[in-house]
């Protein structure tokens, strides 16, 4: 096994899925000859041809809408929206169409499509290239929202998303694309969707994060350990449909819960998790369920983004504060 980056793992999963199922198509802006602006689709055109790897016109509504049409005809389109900052024209297709097609045809038609999009800040990209809009998608019934946090997760979860019979928004944190390498066996084994992953076990506090906040959260947990605080760390991975059982079991055990996300706090997905924990763990909790998030501001331009994105220090401080309650 070789060590590869997360973007290489995305590429590996796409190639595996295309090789095993000729209904899998890749489409989007600059995905063919250019191999995608992050090179996630590099080599696919050469290997699978221009019928299955297609550069689209610059039209996000059409990219999502065509995918709905293809999926209804039993193809498995994997469409790329170049950055989540440009995904909004496709949202009508996700809210009104992709997520509802199975339901509004009583299963006559279905929508097994994946919409991939690089998300989040931290790579000093231009304006509109660094947003974290996952909560918007998680609010859409009938749509799955999946965010990988490592090369292995990207490989296994993307395979699962492509094989899933229903639509999935697959958000890939740009900050993690080349942040680290990991051994990934190209064995075609998918990771389960709708499942949270316990990345580190602990007894004093549960730290819950996803995507690009996982490295910071794990680093914070390591620091807390040095201070004698045993933190359990959960990678949510699939935001919708949320595996609240795993979260609730963990918080019932640790009795403290801190949720970390890069997106703005107001209306963020942390609020949903906090509400479910509050409902289920009320009598176990020793401290208020808390959040460390991006500020309720516009995502800043590159020079301020490190102040916006929750840091290891902010996470550690919030966790230590929760330990002071009892």
């Amino acid at each position, binding site marked *: 096994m070789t060590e590869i980056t997360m973007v290489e793992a995305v590429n590996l999963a796409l190639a595996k899925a295309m090789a095993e199922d000729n209904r899998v*198509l890749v489409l989007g802006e600059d995905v063919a000859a250019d191999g995608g602006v992050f090179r996630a689709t590099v080599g696919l055109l050469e290997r699978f041809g221009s*019928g299955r790897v297609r550069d*689209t*016109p610059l*039209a996000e*509504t*059409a990219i*999502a*809408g*065509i*995918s*709905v*049409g*293809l*999926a*209804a*005809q*039993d*193809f498995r*389109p994997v469409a790329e929206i170049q950055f989540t900052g440009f995904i909004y*024209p496709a949202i*009508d*297709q996700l809210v*009104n*169409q992709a997520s509802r097609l*199975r*339901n*509004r*045809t*009583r*299963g*006559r*038609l*279905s929508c097994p499509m994946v919409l991939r999009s690089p998300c989040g800040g931290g790579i000093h990209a231009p304006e509109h290239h660094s947003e974290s809009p996952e909560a918007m998608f998680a609010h859409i*019934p*009938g749509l799955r929202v999946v965010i990988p946090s490592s090369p292995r997760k990207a490989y296994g979860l993307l395979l699962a998303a492509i094989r899933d*019979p*229903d639509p999935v928004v697959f958000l890939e944190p740009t900050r993690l694309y080349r942040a680290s390498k990991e051994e990934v066996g190209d064995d075609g084994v998918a990771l389960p969707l*709708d499942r949270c992953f316990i990345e580190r076990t602990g007894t004093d506090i549960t730290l819950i994060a996803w995507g690009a906040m996982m490295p910071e959260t794990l680093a914070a947990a390591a620091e807390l350990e040095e201070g004698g605080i045993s933190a359990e760390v959960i990678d949510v991975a699939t935001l919708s*449909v*949320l*595996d*609240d*059982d795993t979260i609730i079991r963990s918080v019932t055990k640790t009795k403290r819960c801190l949720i970390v996300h890069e997106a703005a706090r107001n209306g963020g997905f942390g609020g949903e998790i906090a509400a479910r924990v509050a409902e289920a763990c009320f009598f176990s909790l020793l401290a208020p369920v808390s959040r460390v998030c991006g500020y309720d501001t516009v995502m800043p331009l590159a020079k301020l983004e490190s102040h916006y994105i929750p840091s290891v220090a902010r996470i550690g401080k919030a966790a230590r504060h929760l330990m002071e309650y009892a």
Partner: protein
Amino acid sequence: MLNCPRRGLVMAMPSDIEAKTRATPPVASPMPDAETEARRFINPSGKLLQPVTKAWAPPEQLERLYHAMVLTRAFDEKAIALQHTGRLGTYPSSLGQEAVAVGIAAGMAAEDILLPAFREHGAQLWRGVAMLELLLYWGGDERGSDFKKARVDFPVSIPVAAHFPHAAGVALALRLKATRNVAVCVGGDGATSKGDFYEAINIAGAWKLPAVFVVNNNQWAISVPVHAQTAARTLAQKAVAAGIEMDRVDGNDVLAVLDAVERAAARARSGDGPTLIEAVTYRLGDHTTSDNARRYRSDEEVSRHWIEEPIARLRAHLTNTGYWTKEREEDLHSQCSAAVEEAVAAYLATAAESPSAMFDHLFATLPAPLKRQCDLATAEATSHD
């Protein structure tokens, strides 16, 4: 700091500019020219203007088209009556546009895929969707969407033009499967103002997809007339920007619509790419049962368009040729009325659906957290019984 009162931004526009920017209807009855003329086979008095294709020339074939339009109108009248008496939800009438819907469906092959807007009841019926299913759907019952026939046709598209990109996707799928089938997509005049419409016809052109896009230009998008919708002289000409074929037909002439769809589908089947067809007709009814068109258009205008309506025209033609008689007309009406009444009786006798129907088709397999909600909804319903 200056203490300025808030000032409005809307100021008087110079009157010469104001006059130029106001949307104005085109001059009444302009002389037809090659660019804006709509092709037709039968004029409003039933006169045949050009020969009909061999397949549709026999009177029995024309009768099929006539029957379908009469049935569509009978269904429409009943649906409106049901809504007015609280037994159906909001319903969009297709009054006066029966030739567009029937012509489209008759011009398609059974294996082609229809992607309708929401006013193509006649096309859905022709393709085998049951009247009962239409009533269930417009009555708010999920089961109406489970068509027993035409199972791979798309459901109606309530959001305007959102289904145009789907047609491009379906057309690409049909091409990749190496079929000769085509995707046929229908929208209204208002749909041509939307980005979805343009993105779809553009990509269909760029990829030469086997798609036929039909615009039912019924002159009104709820209260906005087509001349206020666009400065384009025709809606068909929007094809020029996408580099695709265009056609403009009299939408009150079922043979013209049928012919345009057949020609466009033939081009698409042979790899010559998509076509945009504009079928020029008129919305004789309200936008939906929730609308009152008298708020924004005159009775005089509507009366003027009744002269053009599609059913009387084909009946006049069939009568002129000696094929159609008063007896046959009466028979047809009783037959259509009986079919509608049978569907209505079945609709009204349909037992209520279970709340679990909300969950049944959300995902292929219901995830555990949603299973719990489904159980809750079912238990709540049982406790209310």
